[in-house]
């Protein structure tokens, strides 16, 4: 296949430089693609699609009838991240998560940051993620946001920006692992020629982190993954992570609170549970504390949690820092707690709750991207340049009615990656979601979910809106880095084997 026909266009392209030649990090892959006979790339793509359906790596689509399972479309041209760039991303994310964790802890205790007026009180008190039930709670080891997925984008200026933080139950990491497995079978030769950092040790890192949260003195803690059930859109991932970690996957109905502890109902009676990686929103976690109509949670769970007899990841109440208005204050939050400048910048953000900014936003709707503070999945969003006059009027009304609930950002020109469309390579916009684990230390998985907007020109990468995914290759700067990665992997392999006996 000839790469010379590929049009970089007026965008930042992750694979090709401005001169139209492959970037240094992408050369082995470019050579491989060029050497393939015509049609071969498509053949491999179809093989990948088949493998995904057969493996049942699917998500459920809400609001549709039986049997509507879709595979997340997978594109076989990866996004490649050079070592030096990754180094900066990793440092930036660690800084961000450390500060956000301090912020959450502060909000549920002394609220110093509000008293010092670095973040306005009304922004915090109106955040949908704030849980009064968590005031004064001390989560195990002082960690609130154990698992975070932070969305990054690159603008045409070449700079990487943080687009949003997902601190509640970020999903997608199973696709990172499965995409990699698929790519290894599709392009083994390129893996041999490039130094691509492995991602497969994520499950054991996750398990280590979760075990670290267990109540003091528990030498072999029982960790479980709590899922809303098989009809949840991310069910595959819940089951996959439980399997890869070698722990039980439980539903709310499997758990029961008694004698101040959480137990699971087994064929041989009740067994105690120490750590719950919950993939259920705060609201549904415990009908005695949160929504009383929840059928998914465990009555009395929060009491056990507050008494320190079970750990929950992520800690209930962490979502307060997930709010898109709070996001706008993250540079100040980092400065306040760490006295550092932000390493990975935020996208410049207009807070509609501020009167001056509101005026600006309403006057410039046609250029801006407007987002609702608490929506995710690409819903509740206006992309100014792609919108109709009616849509803008509709949003103007909504913003004026509830300015607190909206932010606006300039429309970024997201970078592109070559993507196989109808057998040809065309540029498509991407973002990147790396995953960060906060346990004994902060670990950033070298890779992440590259989401791609498959529709021509589209900037919305969400799977619910026609997005797909790609493998993300983070390159190692030296064989030593790779060796270090592999060492944790080998240790992990031993651990997993030991755990299943």
């Amino acid at each position, binding site marked *: 296949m000839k790469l010379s026909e590929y049009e970089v266009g007026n965008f930042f392209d992750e694979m090709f430089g401005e001169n139209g030649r492959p970037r240094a990090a992408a050369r082995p892959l470019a050579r491989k693609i060029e050497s393939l006979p015509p049609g071969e790339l498509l053949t491999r793509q179809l093989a990948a699609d088949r493998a995904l*359906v*057969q*493996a*049942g790596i699917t998500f459920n689509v809400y609001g549709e009838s039986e*049997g509507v399972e879709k595979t997340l479309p997978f594109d076989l041209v990866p996004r490649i991240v050079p070592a030096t760039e990754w180094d900066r991303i990793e440092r930036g994310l660690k800084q961000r998560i450390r500060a956000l964790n301090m912020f959450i802890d502060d909000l549920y205790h002394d609220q110093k940051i509000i008293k010092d007026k670095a973040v306005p009180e009304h922004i915090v008190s109106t955040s949908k993620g704030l849980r009064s039930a968590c005031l004064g709670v001390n989560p195990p080891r002082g960690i609130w946001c154990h698992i975070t997925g932070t969305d990054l984008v690159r603008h045409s200026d070449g700079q990487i920006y943080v687009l949003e933080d997902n601190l509640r139950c970020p999903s997608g990491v199973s696709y990172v692992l499965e995409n990699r497995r698929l790519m290894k079978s599709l392009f083994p030769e390129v893996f041999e020629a490039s130094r691509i950092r492995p991602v497969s040790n994520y499950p054991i890192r996750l398990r280590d982190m979760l075990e670290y949260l267990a109540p003091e003195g528990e030498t072999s803690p029982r960790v479980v993954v709590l899922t809303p*059930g*098989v009809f949840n859109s991310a*069910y595959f991932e819940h*089951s*996959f992570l*439980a*399997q890869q970690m070698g722990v*039980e*996957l*439980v*539903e709310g*109905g*499997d758990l*029961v609170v*008694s*004698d101040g502890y959480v*137990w*699971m*109902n*087994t*064929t*041989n*009676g*009740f067994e105690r549970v120490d750590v719950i990686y919950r993939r259920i929103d705060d609201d549904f976690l415990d009908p005695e504390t949160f929504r009383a109509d929840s059928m998914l949670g465990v009555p009395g769970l929060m009491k056990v949690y507050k008494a320190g007899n079970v750990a929950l990841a992520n800690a209930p109440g962490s979502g307060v820092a997930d709010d898109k208005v709070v996001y706008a204050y993250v540079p100040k939050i980092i400065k306040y707690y760490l006295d550092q400048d932000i390493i990975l910048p935020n996208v410049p953000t207009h807070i509609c709750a501020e009167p001056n900014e509101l005026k600006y936003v309403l006057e410039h709707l046609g250029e801006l991207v407007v987002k609702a503070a608490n929506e995710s999945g690409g819903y509740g969003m206006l992309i100014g340049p792609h919108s109709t006059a009616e849509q803008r009027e509709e949003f103007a009304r909504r913003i004026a009615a509830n300015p607190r609930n909206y932010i606006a950002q300039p429309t970024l020109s997201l970078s592109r990656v070559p993507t196989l469309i109808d057998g040809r390579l065309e540029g498509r916009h991407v973002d990147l979601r790396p995953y960060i684990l906060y346990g004994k230390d902060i670990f950033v998985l070298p890779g992440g979910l590259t989401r791609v907007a498959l529709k021509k020109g589209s900037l919305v990468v969400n799977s619910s809106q026609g997005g797909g995914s790609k493998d993300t290759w983070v390159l190692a700067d030296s064989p030593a880095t790779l060796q270090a990665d592999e060492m944790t992997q080998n240790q992990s392999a031993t651990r997993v084997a030991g755990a299943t006996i």
Partner: protein
Amino acid sequence: MLSRVADSIYWMSRYVERAENVARIVDVNLNIMLDSTSADQQWQPLVNITGDHEDFAKRYEEANRQTVLEFLTFDRDNPNSILSCLRSARENARSVREIISSEMWLQLNQFYLTVKAAAEGGQGMDSPHEFFTNVKLSSHLFTGLTDATMTHGEGWHFSRLGRKLERADKTSRILDVKYFILLRSVADVGTPFDDVQWAAVLRSSSAFEMYRKRHGRISPKLIVEFLLLDSEFPRAIRYCLNAARDSFHAISGTPIGTYRKPAEKLLGQLCSELAYATIDDVMGQGLHEYLDTLQTNMNLVSNGVYERFFAKRMPETRHASMEKVQ
């Protein structure tokens, strides 16, 4: 093992076995039809074997080749059609994906997708024999993968328990319905057609050759004996119940010959009953009555399995399983 997980594994196996048995029953009937004129065709008994005749009567006007095939194979509203069974089996497997081997999941998913595609594409019934053979083979492959790739621990025993109880139930239904019909049509008794019918009963349980080796000549009484009381033929009711009992005890940890819970007791009693029964006792009692009681008892065992292992409990009963061995 989580009660919910055990429940799902049990039903996953049961549904695959059920799909296979439906395929067997239909396939054999299609074969018999080749030897008979259309006037003689009997389709209603097939529906009776599955026990879903009431549901069938509600939605279909008459039992003919087309309606019965549709009802038993691809009817989404019939929870016991092949398609529905596989959908349920797959849903159960999906909820225990992290417990079963990935080979099992891949195969079952593929199995379901193939049947679903056949249902949607309207194929399958173009060459029904090939279709039903595929269903049987896929089921065997799944069972083989279960045996060869899953640790033979608690989960595997639940899978075997479900499969064997289902198989015993289906064999008893085949016997019951076929015997009833065959003896009723007195005119056919002793004629070549009768032999064909009886051979079909054996074939639907893959028992034809094994029966021949044991008894040679076709005789209704010996056939009943073979499918009911044989301790070595893997689709015979006695064999299935023995295997179910072994797995039940492997799970509960109670030594065979003793029991803790009613289901364990009843299952042991059924095995003993079949071990000591003679075919003359059974026929003397009336085969239909005998099988009817047997089916009722097997249902009680199934309910007991649910009560003992799967039902939701509260911690007050945490020590209930410490009851004395009797």
